[in-house]
């Protein structure tokens, strides 16, 4: 896999033993891992095509330790890569050869549950699902539900601004977090926000969310919790044409209905899923929609009727409506298992993650079919159709020479098409290293420079997770330089910096 990472600092590597000793002084015992065998578990995240053992792994368990580690690394000019559960699909936690891998896995405690203010204060290593489980006895849950919620950490969710099936109605991570404790690369510990609906001053929480571990290391998070909807029912609707399914999605939204979830699968995905979980999916349709309505029973029943009518009007060929929780779960079983199901029909697959305007869905699918022909690789498509988030799964065999390169080129072309159709490179998986080099397809140099200047405000040395998100690294002094516009600066001869 050819992806250029920042050049390793040989001077740092030469001092490895000394650095390990210094980290051991901060985190005693088993909190520092330095043997190749033990570090293997950390050499990649969910984007397993890329692997790189770190220089050393450190697993602190207090905010003070995190602060001391970062302070030490900042003083010594050592790069740091933060890591939660390591489920990133974009390589956000890929280690650096000359970098410290800072794992937050020991931050596993839920610090406070406050039902009156409807928040949970948690450490970042707690899994997404564990938060919902901790408040379930009172009927509450944490709404964002990425598919990896059993394993992914809430800290990672904040870093990636994770979504999930239900974010159409309930928002992404950014819409559900209120505050955090964050340690800057300098070691400075800051508290942002808290239990109030909004923070004073600039919305720092908002920009930290989704910053992919480049701005700071989060050691505590305050999330909003909601009451679970009284009930949920799902429809499973088949269409002979993808266009008709796309039209159905548009009309449901157009009718003012925001389903809890609205997912689409194309024929290859349907077949793979059905062969895997036997959910009773119709095999003779080109597209399948799973539409879930949640809320009070009276509302769900009414909306099911309305959605069914819209589906009929759009020419649906099959329509099943869940009448029990078991049936609803069965509808979802195939969709939720789509990735492993595709894993069974192909030795390897690449999972893409672009977003397009809903209306561009048929166009995007047609383009993906063309590209599939061009690259001679199969592709199964699953979508969060309600918000236009595509997950094409490109099928390839890593053992066949040239296939991985073709698959990556295919994927890049899909993401470029997303941008061309008015969409974006990533809807929920993050840029990481995977889409890093495509950033110039969506953003100009000026756009990217503004983003990198913001990075400088948090991490002036550029030591925190370098090589991710941005295709080119700039020194902060260079980014901060004021442009001289056609000699318009007064007194241009006076040195300004």
């Amino acid at each position: 896999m050819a992806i250029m990472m920042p050049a390793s600092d040989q001077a740092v590597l030469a001092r490895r033993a000394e650095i390990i000793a210094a980290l051991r002084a901060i985190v005693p015992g088993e909190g520092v891992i330095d043997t190749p065998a033990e570090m293997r578990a950390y050499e990649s995240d969910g984007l397993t095509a890329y692997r790189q053992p770190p220089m050393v792994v450190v697993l602190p368990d207090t905010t003070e330790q995190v602060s001391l580690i970062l302070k030490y690394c900042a003083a010594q000019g050592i790069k740091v890569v933060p890591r939660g559960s390591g489920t990133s699909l974009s390589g956000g936690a890929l280690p650096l050869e000359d970098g410290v891998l800072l794992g937050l896995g020991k931050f596993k405690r839920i610090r406070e549950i406050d039902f009156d203010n409807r928040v949970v204060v948690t450490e970042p290593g707690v899994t997404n699902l564990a938060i919902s489980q901790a408040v379930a006895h009172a009927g509450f849950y944490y709404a964002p539900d990425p598919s990896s919620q059993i394993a992914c950490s809430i800290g990672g969710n904040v870093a990636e601004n994770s979504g999930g099936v239900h974010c159409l109605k309930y928002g992404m991570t950014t819409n559900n977090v209120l505050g955090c404790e964050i340690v800057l690369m300098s070691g400075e510990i800051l508290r942002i926000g808290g239990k109030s609906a909004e923070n004073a001053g600039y919305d720092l929480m908002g920009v930290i969310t989704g910053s992919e571990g480049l701005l700071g290391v989060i050691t505590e998070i305050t999330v909003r919790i909601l009451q679970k909807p009284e009930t949920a029912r799902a429809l499973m609707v088949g269409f002979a044409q993808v266009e008709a399914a796309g039209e159905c999605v548009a009309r449901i939204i157009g009718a003012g209905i925001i389903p809890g979830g609205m997912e689409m699968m194309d024929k290859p995905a349907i077949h793979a899923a059905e062969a895997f979980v036997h959910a009773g999916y119709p095999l003779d349709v080109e597209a399948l929609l799973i539409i879930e309505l949640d809320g009070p029973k009276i509302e769900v029943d009414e909306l099911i009727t309305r959605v069914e009518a819209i589906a009929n009007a759009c020419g649906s060929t099959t329509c099943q409506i869940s009448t029990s929780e078991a049936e609803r779960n069965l509808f979802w079983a195939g969709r939720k298992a789509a990735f492993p199901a595709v894993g069974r029909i192909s030795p390897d697959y690449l999972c893409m993650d672009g977003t397009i305007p809903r209306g561009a869905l048929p166009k995007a699918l047609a383009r993906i079919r063309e590209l599939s022909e061009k690259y001679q690789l199969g592709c199964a498509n699953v979508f969060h159709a309600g918000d236009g988030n595509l997950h094409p799964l490109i099928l390839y065999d890593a053992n066949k020479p040239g296939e991985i390169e073709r698959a990556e080129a295919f994927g890049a072309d899909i993401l470029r098409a997303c941008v061309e159709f008015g969409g974006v490179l990533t809807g929920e998986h993050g840029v990481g290293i995977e889409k890093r080099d495509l950033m110039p397809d969506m953003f100009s140099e000026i756009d990217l420079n503004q983003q990198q200047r913001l990075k400088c405000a948090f991490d002036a040395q550029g030591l925190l997770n370098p090589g991710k998100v941005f295709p080119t690294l700039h020194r902060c002094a260079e980014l901060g330089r004021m442009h001289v516009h056609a000699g318009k600066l007064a007194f241009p001869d006076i040195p300004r910096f």
Partner: protein
Amino acid sequence: MCMPASWRSRIFRGSRSATNELLSLVNFDTGTVVDTLKVRDAKDVEEVVRAAIANEQPLEIIGHGGKRGIGHAMATNAVLDVSALNAVTSYEPNELIVTLQAGAPLADVLALIDAKNQQFAFEPVNTAPLLGTPVSGTIGGMIAAGLAGPRRIRAGGARDHLLGAHAVSGFGDSFKTGGRVVKNVTGYDLCKLLAGSWGTLSVMTEVTLKVMPKPEAERTLLLRGLDDAVANKAMTAALGSPFDVSGAAHLPKSAFRARTDGLGDIVGQGEALTLLRLEGITASAAHRAGSLRELLAPFGTATLIEDAASAALWAAIRDVLPFAAGGALGAWPVWRIVCPPASGAALGTQLARETGGDLIYDWGGGLIWAALPPKPDAHAPVVRARANAVGGHATLIRAAEEVRRDVDVFHPQAPGIAALSERVRASFDPKTILNRGRLTRSAG
């Protein structure tokens, strides 16, 4: 601050700016004549900001100028007026998005999306009645202020609905951030910073906002006569229920000393009012209203207000009409205090007792509008102390200019956060060209 004599001519010498409308207007706040540069497009904005950088001349950024009274007096009398950037770039109801130039009038945009039965779910506050200005402002002003109404508790604020923006930074460069789709994690989410930045980071020129379907029906349950603490408990119970409450407000009895326009007949005997809103399809809203009424039985028997009457009521709370500039408390300073919702009543009652002020609680107690008797410091020390004690913060939304000269309008932050915020600000505008001095007294 005096304008350099060369200012006007420099603008005119620009390659595109010969056709700029350069207007001299009277600043009605100060009675002084200022130079207002009315720009036509993003290129004009770039040009004006670049010229301003070259001259080290700060700019005040305005749309309709309706919120100029919020914040500190700006260290400039050169005004960049974006109100002519008022086009609707595109409106796609089925995509649930609208793309607008920043100067588009809020009232027109609301009418446009209302015609498709859609709305901004965060219920932007119309500050005109509170501030006594004639206009409800522009889309850019709505985002820059980021003031959300009662549905904030369920639908989020302006920051949650701003999907993308084109803006000119204090480097004089146009940049874009975000996109035109709801689900997007490509690059840093600079939209979050622009929302609520009061024009101190960049001049927004075009924005894409999420719109949402208007609910088919709304029902409001009204409880009478609760004291603040009990009302806070009732609102907490309602918001902790599965009935999807989209508004939870409490108007203590004293709030009705003032003007009660928009509250209509329900004010009745001048008792305290506690209001809980349910929205959605008709059958559901009605059903949930019934269930919630049962849940709230320990707090009294709630009466039901439907649809148009309910909407008028929530608009009055959203726009803080009891404290309107034209009303009995029009001369009182008004604070906007945001705090953990369950702490609202304790904070509010103590504040009212200490100052003799009037309050309105929204967001289930998480937002307190406080009109306090006039005082040179607008009671800032006590307001800030009470807010800090519960981890909240307070903004002096309305006060005379001489008060704002001596009192921090925006909540002072912890030193580390203040320093980081300043670095963030400088990363957009290193020369402090944009709205210099608006957020902090010291920066002026």
